[in-house]
C-alpha cells in the first residue's frame, strides 16, 4: 500500500461573501479578491505541512493543479514538485497531475519532469490529467481538442523519455522538428504515470489500456466499484488482469484526538459546498467539445439549469454517512478506511487531510495522526488484504513493458 497526504491548498483568505454574490468561485471570479500577501503566508504554511508529513511517515505527497479559483492555490503543480524534490528526502512526489492539453510544448514539460525526477533522485510519480473544463478556458486552450491533445502530448512525452534523440514529431496538435532534450528522467523506462479521474469512462478505458493505475477522486464506494468494472474489462482486452496495484483512491479524512473537533474541522471540506470546484459554473466547467458526445444531452440540460448537478448536492451529514468524508479520532478513521479498503481494494490511497479554514495547528495535528497512527494501521490491513502498491508489486510502468500478457502487447490505443 502506498499512502499519500494531499491537500487542495485552499486559498482560504478570500471573501466568501464576494464569491457567493458573484455566484461562482471559478474562472471569472475576479482575482481582485486574491491577496498575494495572504497567498505567500499560505504557500509557506502548506510547504511546512508537506515537510511535516514526510517527518510523520507518509509514503508520498500528492500534488495537483487548478486555475482561477480559490479552492486550489497551485496553478503550477511543477513548482511545488520542484521544491519538494529539494527539501524532502524520502517521500514520493506524486503529481496528479499535469494537465497535458494545457501544454503548448510537451517536450519542455518532459524536460521539466525529468529535472524534478533527477533532483528528487528518482522519487517522481508523473500523473497526467485532461484538466477541468474551466482550466481550458483559463488558459485559452481549445476544449474541443482536449482529449486529442491529452493523448498526443502523452505519446510525445513518453517517446521523448524513452527514445534517443534527435527525432522529429509531426502530430496533429504538436509539431516539433527537433526533439532531443538532454534532460531526461533518471527512472527507467520512465517515472510511473498514474491517472486520476472521476467521471470520464473514456479516460478509465484509456488508462487501463496503458496499464497505468487509475486514481478515483473521492468517488462513492459504488461508483468506485463501477469504475473498476470498466477498468478491468478494458485491461482484460489487452491481456492482463489488474490488481490493487492498478487501483488508487482519494478520500477526505480529517483526524483529531477529539471527535468533536474532528467533526467541526471536517465540515471545512464543505467550504466549497462539497464540490471539487467550488461554486462551479456549469457552462465553464463543461465547455462544448470537452465532454463525451454520449453525455451531450445530459450536459446541455445541466448547462441551462434544466437538470441538477450530476454529482448531486449531498450535505455534510450525507457525506459522512456515505464515507465520502471521514472525520473522527484515529480509531474511528482507521475503522472506516479499513471498510473502504476491503470494499474497493486499492493499492494506492491518498488521504486529503485538511481543507478550508482549518487552523495551522489543527492541520499539523491531523497530519501527525494520519502519518503516525492511521497509516501504520492501514499498512497492516493492506498486508492482510494483499493490497500491494505498484512499487511493491513491481508492476510494469506501461503495458508495453509487461512480461505477463496473455497475448502479445498491442500498441495501446
Amino acid at each position, binding site marked *: 500500500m502506498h499512502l499519500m497526504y494531499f491537500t487542495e491548498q485552499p486559498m482560504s483568505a478570500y471573501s466568501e461573501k464576494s464569491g457567493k454574490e458573484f455566484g461562482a468561485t471559478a474562472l471569472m471570479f475576479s482575482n481582485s479578491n486574491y491577496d498575494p500577501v495572504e497567498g505567500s503566508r499560505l504557500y509557506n504554511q502548506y510547504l511546512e505541512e508537506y515537510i511535516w508529513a514526510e517527518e510523520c511517515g507518509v509514503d508520498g505527497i500528492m500534488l495537483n493543479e487548478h486555475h482561477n479559483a480559490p479552492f486550489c492555490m497551485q496553478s503550477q503543480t511543477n513548482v511545488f514538485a520542484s521544491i519538494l524534490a529539494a527539501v524532502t528526502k524520502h517521500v514520493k512526489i506524486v503529481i496528479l497531475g499535469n494537465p497535458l492539453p494545457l501544454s503548448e510544448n510537451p517536450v519542455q514539460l518532459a524536460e521539466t519532469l525529468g529535472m524534478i525526477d533527477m533532483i528528487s533522485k528518482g522519487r517522481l510519480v508523473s500523473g497526467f490529467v485532461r484538466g477541468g473544463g474551466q482550466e481550458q478556458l483559463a488558459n485559452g486552450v481549445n476544449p474541443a481538442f482536449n482529449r486529442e491533445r491529452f493523448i498526443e502530448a502523452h505519446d510525445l512525452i513518453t517517446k521523448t523519455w524513452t527514445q534517443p534523440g534527435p527525432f522529429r514529431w509531426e502530430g496533429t496538435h504538436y509539431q516539433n522538428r527537433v526533439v532531443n532534450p538532454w534532460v531526461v528522467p533518471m527512472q527507467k523506462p520512465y517515472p510511473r504515470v498514474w491517472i486520476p479521474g472521476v467521471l470520464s469512462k473514456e479516460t478509465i478505458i484509456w488508462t487501463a489500456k496503458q496499464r497505468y493505475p487509475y486514481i478515483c477522486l473521492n468517488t462513492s464506494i459504488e461508483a468506485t466499484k463501477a469504475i473498476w468494472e470498466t477498468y478491468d474489462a478494458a485491461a482484460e482486452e489487452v491481456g492482463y488482469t489488474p490488481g490493487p496495484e492498478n487501483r488508487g483512491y482519494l478520500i477526505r479524512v480529517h483526524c483529531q484526538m477529539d471527535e468533536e473537533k474532528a467533526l467541526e474541522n471536517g465540515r471545512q471540506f464543505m467550504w466549497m459546498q462539497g464540490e471539487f470546484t467550488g461554486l462551479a459554473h456549469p*457552462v465553464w466547467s463543461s*465547455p462544448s467539445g470537452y465532454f463525451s458526445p454520449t453525455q451531450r444531452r445530459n450536459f*446541455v440540460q445541466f*448547462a441551462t439549469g434544466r437538470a441538477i448537478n450530476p454529482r448531486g448536492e449531498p450535505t455534510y451529514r450525507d457525506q459522512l454517512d456515505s464515507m465520502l468524508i471521514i472525520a473522527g479520532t484515529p480509531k474511528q478513521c482507521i475503522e472506516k478506511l479499513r471498510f473502504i479498503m476491503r470494499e474497493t481494494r486499492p493499492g494506492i490511497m491518498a488521504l486529503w487531510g485538511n481543507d478550508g479554514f482549518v487552523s495551522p495547528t489543527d492541520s499539523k495535528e491531523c497530519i501527525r495522526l494520519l502519518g503516525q497512527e492511521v497509516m501504520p494501521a492501514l499498512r497492516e490491513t493492506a498486508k492482510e488484504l494483499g493490497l500491494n502498491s505498484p512499487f511493491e508489486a513491481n508492476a510494469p510502468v506501461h503495458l508495453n513493458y509487461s512480461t505477463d500478457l496473455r497475448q502479445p502487447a498491442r500498441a495501446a490505443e
Partner: protein
Amino acid sequence: MTSSVAWTDSSATIAGVRLNYSRAGSGRPIVVLHHDIGTVDRLPFYDALAGGNDTIVVNLPGYGKSERPEWMRHPRDIAAMVQWLLHDLNVKNASVVGLGFGGWIAAEMASQGPSDFAKLVLVGPMGILPPQGYILDQALVNYIEYARAGFHTDAAFASVYGDVSIDQLEIFDVCREMSFRIAWKPYMYSQTLPHLLGGVRAPALVVVGEHDQVVPHSAADVYVTALRSARKEVVAGSGHCVDMEKPAELAGLVTKFING
C-alpha cells in the same frame, strides 16, 4: 417553422463529407450561409428570398444536419467546401448572403475568388477583430443566453425558438463545438482576412442590426472600408440576427441590392 415555399432538401459529398442544403425558387442564384448557432430548416427570410431568386441555404459542415469534417481547422476550409458545392451544382455568378458567422465564410469565399460572385451581402459579419468592443464569447454563457443575445426582443427570439427544446439545445451544442474546433483562437476572426478583402470585385452590402450585442458595429465598418465597393445599412429595432428578427426588412434590402 412552417413554410409555404416548396423547398427541396438535398445533400452532396464534398471533401468526403455529406453536405446538406435546401433549395427553392428561381431567378438569380443566392447562396445563404447561416449563423454559428446553425439554422432552423425554414425561415420567413429564406422564403422571401426564394420568392424571386434561386435560393440555396447551405447547412455548413459540422453544423446542423451536415457531417463534421474532423480534419477541418479554419472557416476558410468551409469557404472552400461551399465553393466546391457550388461548382458541383453548376451554380455560377451567385450572390452570397452571409449571416453573422456565415458572413465571415462569405467574405472568405469572395477573397478566394475575387470575381466569382455577383453580389455580397454580409449581415453582422464576424471574421474581423472589431476595433471597438469584442465579439461575444459564447464559451462564457449558456446556449440559450447566447442565442437570445442575437435578438433585440424576447418575442422575436420566442417566435423562432419557442421554449427551446432539448433537441435544439443539442443542436446548439453541436454548432458551438464546431465553432470552437475552427475558430477558437483567435476567437471568431481572422488576422489575415482584412488584408485580402481589397481584391474582392463583387459589390457588397453590409447590414447590421441596430442593437447587435454579438458583433460590434465597428467590425462592419472595417468591412465597408476594406472592400472595394461596399456600403452599410442599419436595420432599426433588430439585434444580431436580423434575418430572424426583421426578415421582411432584410429580405427587402437583399433582393433590392441583388436584383436591382
